[in-house]
C-alpha cells in the first residue's frame, strides 16, 4: 500500500465518518416523522428539508461555548473527543469490500470490541465533570448499562468468530455463507440488542432520559461540544450497523452484482440496520432500570451461551 493510496483511504474514511452519521440523522428525522404522521423538516435546502442537519451544524458552531463554573475544565473539554474518536477507529477497520478496509488487523473483531468499550469513558467523564447531579446520574446509568451489556455483545461476536474460525473481519465475511443467517440468528439479535444498549439508544435510553434527568451526561453541554456528542451517537449507529453487516449479514456478499460493487451492498445493509434502529426508537417505550438489567442477565447472557454451544456443536460435527 503506497502513501498516496493510504492518504486517499484516510480522506474517504473521514468523509464517510462525517457524512454517514448525518445521513442516518436525516433518515431518522424523516422516517420518524412519517411513522408519526408528521412531515418532519421541510424547508432547509429546499427539497424535503435535506439540509436540515447542515443548518443545525451551522447553528451549533455559532453557539457560545459554555463552561459551568463548578465544572472540572480539562475533563469537561476532553470528554466529547473521547466519546467520538473510538468510532472513527472502528470505522477504519470495517472492510467495505474485498480487501477494502482502511486498516486491516489480524484480530480485527477483538480490536473493534476493545475500542468501542472506550467510548463510554467519554460519557462518564462528561457526566462527572459537569458538576450536575442529573449528569452524574446519567453517567452512572450509562456505565451500569455498558457493564451489563458488554458481556452478551462479546459472547455474540465470539460465536461468529468461532463459526468462521478467524478473528479478522474480512476473514469472517469470506467464510460467511447464507445459511449462517439462520445458524447465527440468535447471536445476531443479541448483538443488535446489546449494541443498542451500549449506544444508549431507545428503548435503552435511560441514561439520557430527557423527561427525568434532562439528557443525562450531556445536560451542561452546548454548541460544538454538544454537537460532537450527537455526532458520536449517530456515528455509533453507523458503526453498529456496519459491524452487524460484517459479522452477521455477510458484508459485501450478495446473490448478484458483486464484482466491484461490494461496497455498495455493505452500505445498503448498514443503512438497513440503521433504519431498523430508528424504527425501534419510534415503536418501543423506554425500559426501566430493573427491566434493563433483567433483560441482560436473565435473557441475553444465557441465550448467548446457548448460541455459543450451538456454534460449537455445528463446528465439531460439520
Amino acid at each position, binding site marked *: 500500500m503506497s502513501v498516496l493510496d493510504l492518504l486517499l483511504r484516510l480522506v474517504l474514511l473521514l468523509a464517510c465518518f462525517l457524512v454517514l452519521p448525518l445521513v442516518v440523522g436525516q433518515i431518522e428525522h424523516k422516517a420518524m416523522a412519517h411513522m408519526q404522521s408528521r412531515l418532519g423538516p421541510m424547508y432547509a435546502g429546499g427539497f424535503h428539508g435535506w439540509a436540515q442537519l447542515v443548518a443545525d451544524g451551522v447553528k451549533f458552531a455559532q453557539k457560545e461555548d459554555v463552561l459551568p463554573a*463548578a*465544572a*472540572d475544565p480539562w*475533563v469537561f473539554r476532553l470528554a466529547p473527543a473521547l466519546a467520538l474518536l473510538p468510532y472513527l477507529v472502528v470505522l477504519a477497520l470495517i472492510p467495505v469490500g474485498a480487501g477494502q478496509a482502511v486498516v486491516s*488487523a*489480524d*484480530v480485527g473483531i*477483538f*480490536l473493534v*470490541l*476493545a*475500542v*468501542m*468499550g*472506550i467510548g*463510554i*469513558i467519554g460519557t*462518564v*467523564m462528561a*457526566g*462527572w*465533570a459537569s*458538576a450536575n447531579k442529573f449528569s*452524574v446520574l446519567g*453517567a*452512572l446509568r450509562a*456505565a*451500569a448499562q*455498558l*457493564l451489563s451489556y*458488554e458481556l452478551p455483545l*462479546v459472547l455474540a461476536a465470539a460465536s461468529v468468530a468461532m463459526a468462521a474460525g478467524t*478473528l479478522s473481519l474480512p476473514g469472517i465475511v469470506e467464510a460467511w455463507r447464507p445459511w449462517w443467517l439462520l445458524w447465527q440468528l440468535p447471536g445476531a439479535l443479541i448483538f443488535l440488542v446489546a449494541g443498542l444498549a451500549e449506544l444508549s439508544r431507545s428503548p435503552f435510553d435511560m441514561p439520557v432520559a430527557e423527561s427525568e434527568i434532562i439528557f443525562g451526561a450531556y445536560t451542561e453541554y452546548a454548541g460544538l461540544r454538544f454537537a460532537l456528542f450527537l455526532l458520536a451517537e449517530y456515528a455509533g449507529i453507523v458503526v453498529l450497523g456496519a459491524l452487524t453487516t460484517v459479522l452477521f449479514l455477510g458484508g459485501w456478499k450478495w446473490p448478484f452484482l458483486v464484482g466491484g460493487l461490494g461496497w455498495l451492498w455493505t452500505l445498503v445493509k448498514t443503512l438497513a440496520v440503521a433504519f431498523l434502529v430508528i424504527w425501534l426508537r419510534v415503536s418501543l417505550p423506554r425500559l426501566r432500570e430493573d427491566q434493563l438489567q433483567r433483560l441482560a442477565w436473565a435473557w441475553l447472557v444465557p441465550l448467548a451461551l446457548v448460541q455459543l454451544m450451538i456454534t460449537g456443536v455445528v463446528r465439531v460435527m460439520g
Partner: protein
Amino acid sequence: MNAAVTVVFALLGVLAVGSALLVVTTRQVVHAALWLVVALGAVAGCYLLLRAEFVAWVQVLVYVGAVVVLLLFALMLTKAPIGVSEDLDAGLAQRVVAAMVALATGALLVTVLVDGFSGEVIDQGATGGAPAIGASVFRSWVLPFEVLSVLLLAALVGAIVLSRRDVPGAGAADSVAGGR
C-alpha cells in the same frame, strides 16, 4: 528492534510510568482513575510494539474498557467530588514506606524479568496474534488455564452468594455490621 520502534517504545514507557506516578500523587480521586486509563493504554501500546497484538487488545478491552469503567462507576456511586480532596493526602512516614514498597516490588519484577528473558530476541516477522496464544494456552499451559478458570468461577459464585438477600444465612456480614 529498529530505532523508530525503540524510540516510540521508550516514549510509551515514560508515559506509562509518568501517568502511573500521577495516579498515586494526584489529590483528585477521579483524576487518579483517568490517569490510570492513560497508564494502562500506554502499557497496551508497549505490548503492541513487542508484537503481542492480541495481549494488547485484551489489555484495552479488559482494563481500559471494563475495569476502569467499573472503578469510575464505584467512585461516582460513593463519593467523587470535583476538585482537591485534602484527606487524600498521607503523612510523611506513610509516603516513605509506600515508596519503599513500590521500589522493592519494581526491583523484584525487573530482576525476575531480566533473569528470565534477558537473552530473548523478538522475532519481528512473527505476530503474537490469536493462533499463537491459543496454541500455547490450550496445549502447553492448559492445566494452569483450567485451574485459573475454576478459581474465577469460585469467585463468581462467591460474589453471587454474598449479594443475595433471599438465602437464609447469606448477607450475614450486613447484620453483624448493624444491618441495613
